[in-house]
């Protein structure tokens, strides 16, 4: 098998003038980059890392906006044999103190040797580093020389071994110990081989992506897979896309894009927010697969997307699904490539109460489950019960996976690694069932909330809410409720308020606003739904833990869904 640097070397030798990447940025002309451009730009960064005394195998944290610097420095680290990991850039709304705390926590666990960022952000990075921090250098784009032809033979990246760690992907928890998923060259190569076969990837494909690169879907499907495989990538910024979602459709039309990956909410977002005038001349007939991945997939979202864009050439057969996680590099299953995505209408009530997927064509309680498809060739899937026993078809249990592309471990977290495996199988924490050899995901074991493809830990939200004066100590609960309009989850906070009965409606309103403000600025969530209650409302389990599911049910009974 080839390591990353070997693959890049091969493209550089064989196809130096082939366009590897079309880089898009709002307000600027599209920039096509050949493999020669890409690797010469990356080489400048590799030289800078060498000059500053980084050692191959050390971790480099990249804190950069969507930019050529991000692309070049990522591959620069690879060419140098260092281990890159991208951290999200600070957003306008997030409190700098909170960001600093996240960074400090990441540095403490991961022990990176270098951070790459902008000069204006350097003070923020320095502030997060303790005097005895592992970070020996903060490298800035201004220190990097112009692109230059790489001398591959002397680049340490070419000496990396298949089982060496090639990259880390950090999970997005806001507090607590960070977990960096460590992946080897071999694991990534095995995933790309199996996944490329599953989606019938060919050099004629064109991948169009707006996904952030700090997330597995963006990093693997929308960045590394095309660039390492010699498949053209059209890459835009998530920041630009969210302000003008039609950009994705325009890019597919302009570049005859064939493949894109989207979280479920994006289907609704595109169907609802794109104006006809932005679709003039747009032709989506080249799109052979639009792959729904990274949050619960909804039949209704696919239908809305198809109805909206069918007249612009979108083919029904393009709708596809995938179940993926960073721990398996990316994909576990793939559906909708060789035939339509299987839709499995089942009884929602029995799914919830008896944890069985009972087929049912009509009726009030039918839910149309979208299949995530079949396991890709190198990955086996089991559905297991609480004791690890295999469950029969159509019974809901935890999804366990075994493959040759699993993580090497959570970086510097042997405790978390040991906890995640049982008998060599990785326990995903997702619930689902199998039917006819296909995998259906129904929910999650942990109380994780997924908003727009981003993982949100309720504990983090609760901690923020409980820090607001007037909220009873330890008496706030956070959970997600499905928002069918937006196609994703909406976060709800229920907080028990001190002296609830003595407060005026205005005082309660002000307190709710303060909770919204503190949570919004301290997390990745713009919190809207806050429900204030008197003492004793929040149900806890016998062991004193918050019973989030029970509290969620009570909230839905008393307050209703997100549209209320």
């Amino acid at each position, binding site marked *: 098998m080839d390591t990353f640097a070997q693959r890049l070397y091969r493209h550089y030798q064989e196809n130096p003038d082939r366009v590897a990447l079309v880089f898009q940025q*709002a*307000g600027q002309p599209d920039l096509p980059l050949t493999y020669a451009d890409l690797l010469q730009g990356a080489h400048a960064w590799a030289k800078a890392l060498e000059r500053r005394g980084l050692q191959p195998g050390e971790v480099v944290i990249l804190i950069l906006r969507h930019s050529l610097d991000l692309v070049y420095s990522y591959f620069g680290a690879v060419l140098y044999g260092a281990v890159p990991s991208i951290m999200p850039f600070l*957003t*306008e*709304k*997030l409190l700098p103190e909170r960001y600093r705390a996240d960074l400090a926590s990441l540095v403490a666990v991961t022990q990176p040797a270098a951070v790459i960022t902008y000069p204006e952000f350097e003070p923020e990075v320095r502030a997060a580093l303790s005097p005895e921090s592992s970070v020996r250098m903060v490298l800035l784009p201004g220190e990097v020389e112009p692109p230059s032809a790489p001398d591959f033979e002397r680049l340490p990246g070419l000496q990396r071994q298949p089982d060496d760690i090639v990259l880390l992907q950090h999970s997005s928890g806001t507090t607590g110990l960070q977990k960096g998923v460590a992946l080897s060259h071999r694991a990534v190569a095995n995933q790309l081989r199996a996944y490329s076969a599953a989606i019938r990837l060919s050099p004629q494909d064109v991948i169009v992506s707006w996904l952030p690169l700090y997330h597995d879907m963006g990093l693997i499907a929308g960045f590394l897979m095309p660039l390492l495989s010699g498949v053209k990538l059209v890459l835009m910024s998530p*920041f*630009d896309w*969210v*302000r*003008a*979602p039609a950009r994705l459709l325009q890019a597919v039309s302009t570049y005859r894009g064939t493949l894109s990956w989207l979280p479920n*909410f994006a289907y609704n*977002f595109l169907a609802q*927010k794109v*104006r006809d005038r932005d679709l003039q001349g747009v032709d989506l007939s080249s799109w052979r697969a639009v792959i729904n991945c990274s949050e619960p997939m909804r039949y209704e979202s696919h239908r809305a997307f198809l109805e909206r864009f069918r007249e612009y050439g979108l083919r029904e057969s393009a709708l596809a699904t995938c179940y993926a996680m960073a721990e398996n590099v990316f994909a576990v299953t793939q559906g909708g490539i060789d035939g339509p995505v299987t839709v499995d209408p089942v009884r929602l009530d029995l799914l919830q109460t008896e944890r069985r997927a009972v087929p049912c064509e009509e009726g009030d309680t039918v839910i149309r489950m979208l299949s995530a498809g079949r396991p890709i060739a190198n990955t086996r899937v089991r559905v297991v019960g609480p004791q690890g026993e295999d469950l029969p078809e159509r019974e809901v249990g935890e999804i366990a996976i075994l493959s040759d592309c699993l993580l090497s471990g959570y970086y510097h977290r042997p405790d978390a690694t040991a906890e995640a495996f049982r008998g060599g199988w990785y326990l995903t924490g997702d619930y689902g069932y199998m039917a006819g050899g296909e995998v259906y995901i129904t929910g999650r074991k942990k109380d994780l909330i997924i908003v*727009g493809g981003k993982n949100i830990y309720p504990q983090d939200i609760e901690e923020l809410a409980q820090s607001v004066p007037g909220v009873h100590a330890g008496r706030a609960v956070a959970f997600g409720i499905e928002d069918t309009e*937006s196609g994703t989850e909406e976060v709800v906070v229920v907080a028990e308020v001190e002296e609830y009965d003595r407060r005026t409606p205005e005082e309660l*309103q002000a307190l709710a606003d303060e909770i*919204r*403000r503190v949570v*919004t*600025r301290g997390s990745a969530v*713009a919190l*809207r*739904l806050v429900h204030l209650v008197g003492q004793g409302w929040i149900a806890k389990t016998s062991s004193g833990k918050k019973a989030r599911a029970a509290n969620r049910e009570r909230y839905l009974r008393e307050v209703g869904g*997100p*549209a209320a």
Partner: protein
Amino acid sequence: MNAERIETLSSHIAAKILKQPNRKIGADEPVISSGLIDSFSLVDLALFVEDTFGVHLDDAELTAETFDTLRELDQLIESRQA
């Protein structure tokens, strides 16, 4: 400053974006840098401004640097309508 226009913007944001119809948004309250309007809702706001006031906001303008308060948005609309 057009108080009526600010009121129209405030009610729309409160009802449709924040889903708190009773909420009042002050003319000088930051709405973007505070995260009150999240990035997914910026395009909603731009569409509303266009439909209601006939003023097109370019997507590159949907940042706190262009406007962060309803007073600033009101001024932007005013200058475009002139």
